[in-house]
């Protein structure tokens, strides 16, 4: 309150990158899957902030990918328990954090077909902190019940499952998933958005605590790191994305 707060303008994308990087602060090893520029930048930013202690592998990168055992290494590494965080998306995500990467309508003749499950049906079980990331926050995406379960949010007792959903980050806010109670709670709303907007655009019930903070704005020093070092690093894999930072 006493100190003058320095204000630096930032984009919605920058807010997301910084917010996700914050979630990765105490991880030892983070893997970022294909076609994931924002999580990729976030992981590299977390690494830059951690002073090099954090191992990051960005699939699709040559420089920021240390795998020497082929495509299987991601999954073996996760199954060994060495991966702390991973990102998954979803054409649909439902109230119990089930995700659908396959399509809508009657499988297999899907009305809308998405690419497929990728590694979700395995990694969702094994990585302790799976961050669901989907920029679009609408009732089309956040549905009561997915049409196809690529990976279930929770499992019956007795199922080997050291991992699962941890947070859901969207263009409107951050939700936390409670695995015991099988439901999402609203954790923060991004600046410029409101709790009402989140609820209006979510197709299922979400717990809302009495006070929902705004997702913190990026600190100027972190923004500087993002715009210089991380922007240069992520450009190798996502040149057009880097140009927008």
């Amino acid at each position, binding site marked *: 309150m006493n100190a003058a707060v320095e204000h630096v303008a930032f984009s919605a994308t920058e807010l997301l990158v910084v917010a996700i990087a914050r979630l990765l602060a105490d991880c030892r090893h983070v893997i970022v899957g294909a076609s994931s520029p924002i999580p990729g930048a976030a992981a590299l930013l977390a690494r830059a902030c951690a002073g090099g202690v954090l191992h990051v592998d960005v699939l699709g990168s040559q420089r920021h990918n240390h795998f020497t055992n082929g495509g299987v290494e991601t999954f073996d590494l996760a199954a060994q328990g060495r991966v702390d965080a991973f990102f998954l998306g979803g054409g649909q995500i439902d109230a119990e954090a089930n995700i659908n990467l396959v399509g809508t309508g009657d499988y297999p003749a899907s009305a809308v077909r998405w*690419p497929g499950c990728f590694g979700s049906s395995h990694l969702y079980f094994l990585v302790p902190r799976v961050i669901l990331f989907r920029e679009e926050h609408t009732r089309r995406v956040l549905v009561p019940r997915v049409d*196809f379960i690529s990976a279930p949010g929770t499992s019956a007792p007795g199922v080997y499952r050291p991992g699962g959903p941890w947070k859901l980050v969207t263009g409107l806010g951050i939700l936390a998933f409670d695995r015991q109670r099988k439901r999402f709670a609203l954790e923060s709303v991004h600046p410029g958005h409101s709790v009402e907007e989140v609820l209006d655009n979510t197709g299922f019930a979400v717990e809302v605590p009495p006070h929902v903070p705004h997702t913190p704005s990026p600190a100027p020093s972190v923004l500087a790191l993002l715009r210089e070092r991380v922007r240069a690093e992520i450009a190798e894999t996502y040149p057009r994305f880097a140009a927008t930072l």
Partner: protein
Amino acid sequence: MIVDVDSLVSGIADGTKLAIPQDAAGVSMAATRALVRRGVRDLHLVCVPIGGLQADLLIGAGCARTIETSAVTLGEFGTGPRFAAALKAGTLQILDATCPAIHAALQAGQKGIPFIPLRGLLGTDLLTARPDWKVIDNPFAPGDAIVLLPAIVPDVALFHAPLADRHGNVFIGRQRELLTMAHAARRTLVTVEEVVARDLMADPDLAPGVIPATYVTAIAAAPFGAMPVKFRDDYSQDDNAFLAYVAAAANDAAWSVWLAAWLEEAGAVSA
């Protein structure tokens, strides 16, 4: 052992179970064109572990009856359009999978074991869609359900690599899934950017990244043979080619025109 691209694909008969890599690992678009030109039919594609332009094109050209894959994606250009259309039309059998399942099943093929267990999968609709996968009670820990996957043994593995030598050794660098594919498959066909005179196995620095000749059935030189797909640091994805492909693939008439034009192109694939 060193042949031209047309001879290379002559070993891929109708109905072949054909393993192909994901875009980042080295996709032989040169061989794909030769294969479509020859009019191959009823392929069972095994995408290791996902398919891209190559798989979508083979489906669109009517060459594939079945696809086993964890995804078909053109990256930022979305789901493979001919793949999605074929599924909706019911003209393609899909064996949806998840990346580690394809890797593990291929490793089982490599090891000559009939099956391999994999964690995860329980409670997914994927498991329901794959009656060929079995759930058993872990014999070492009763009450612990676990999925068993049958081994994948492709008839042919087909991919693109940077270098080969005249002995039939192929350098793949860090793209280790190509080695697993070659070990698991009965036959392996490779296009390469360059065939070199020196023995790749004789260089102790390069040898760790080599598939030895034992596993390699035939090799064809095909410079820029992955285009318009990205290949290592050698060349980037040709975005304009992808845009033209996606636009044409959106409807059947435009697609036929695109395909005919692509098949007539003589040189490197420019889509």
